């Protein structure tokens, strides 16, 4: 994940306020999104992110894998991540 400069530079505070220093644009991330961004910055693979969410959140019965993939695609489309979803 070290090549994912844009994502590494995103400023994310604890209340979910996200600032992109490249564009000056700001975003709101919910708690799960913050978790995924932190994990991506740390270089976690999708499978590990999904397992981590299931452990920390009440996600029983939810298609967390699909949600995480969709979120990562969303980051790419908004120009906030340069990488495809990393898979182990």
């Amino acid at each position, binding site marked *: 994940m070290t090549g994912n400069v844009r994502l590494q530079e995103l400023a994310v505070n604890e209340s979910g306020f*996200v600032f992109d220093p490249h564009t000056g*644009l*700001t*975003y*709101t*991330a*919910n*708690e*799960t*999104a913050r*978790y*995924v961004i932190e994990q991506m910055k740390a270089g976690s693979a999708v499978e590990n992110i999904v397992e981590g*969410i299931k*452990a*920390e*959140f*009440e*996600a029983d019965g*939810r298609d*967390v894998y699909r*949600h*995480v993939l*969709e*979120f990562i*695609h*969303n*980051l790419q*489309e*908004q120009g*906030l991540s340069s990488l495809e979803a990393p898979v182990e």
Partner: protein
Amino acid sequence: MSRKPYEKPMLVKHQLGMLNKFGSVPSVEPMVSIDGVAVAELLEKYGSPLFVFSEQSIVDKTEELNEAFKLRYPKTTVAWSYKTNYLDAICKVFHREGSWAEVVSEFEYDKAIHNGVPGSRIIFNGPLKPADALEKAFRNKSIVNLDNFDELQTAEEVAEKINEDVSIGIRVNLGTSATPPWGRFGFNLDNGQARDAVRRILAGGKLSLNGLHCHLGTFIQQPEAYQEQSAKLALFANWLREEHSITLDYIDIGGGIASCNTLHTQYLPGSQTTPPLSRFAEAVSSGLSELSCQPDDYPTLFLETGRALIDDAGYILTSVVANKRLPDGQRSVVIDAGVNILFTAFWYKHEIVPAQPVSGTPEQAIIHGPLCMNIDVIRPSLLFPPVEVGDKLVIKSVGAYNVTQWMQFITYRPAVVMISTSGEHALIRRAEELSTITDMEEVPGWLQD
């Protein structure tokens, strides 16, 4: 360690210009019940999707309209516009509240009779009134407003056939500074055609003219248009009395008053831009003050207000069937109610709200219906909270035209329910099933096994 509540991960870009002098971004407040009845209970009992009508809303709006006009012009009578919604139960509420029936076809005429409306309380408009229908209406002493010279001739033939005194009104069209031309129906008042029609009626000697009818257009938000209309009609009534000694029994200003829905082309919500009914009443009474007759001779004012009375009384309850992300990144929410039952989605930004508490960050979304058609879009864009498959939504202000112009297309039209003023609920139209469709069909002998 207790786990935190899960929300699908979402990142929403902040939009500039979302706050302005007109107010903030509209919030999406859940609507868990209608007139005290839980949405979940209605869907559980009658299925999804489901049309729901509030009897209380109809009663309140009808009372508001009557009060607004009768305060300013006491000889006012409201006639329920059947084409706007002719479900029997809906019509019966309006009739119970004192409304006559305004119909625009023989089918609607028969439906009004079927609903127990006396013939003398039916106003028969519309561009097609076959001879048989005219005969029925004339014998029943209904109010008939003629549309064109050919229909005038047919009416004369029918009057001669039944050998009775027959009174008729004529429909006229006219220009106002606030509405687009609506010249297809009736005789034009501005170019003298309406005066020619009067002369033609008098020359025929078989019909008596006793009323004027004019319907300006649709979704009119400008009261001043009605002021111009009623003033022109009043001046025409003065001319009829002065030139031809005709005293009119009624002036019918039609319908067309906007509901509180929001057109796609509007920036501000309809709840802010549609004037209250009292302003329309003020405008009409101001226009009618041009009448030069004695107060005892003032004609009855007929109103055919439809949309403004029934739109807000109707809801569609619907269920989320899928969440999708489109190739261009847009979020799509697919629901089980399509444009075949909600064709007003092509005109209005219908308000859509969840029927249960929601959490999570709202994100711009397209609301798609379930039809296998690309144009099945209920809302092209709205800020909407996260929803899951199975969540219930309420689409507001769908009461006008949808249950008369809906299409049976690839699926069954849903049930329609009414909630009474006391909070009871009951079916007023059953959901369709396969036999509803196939019972109308025939298979020729050579195709049968």
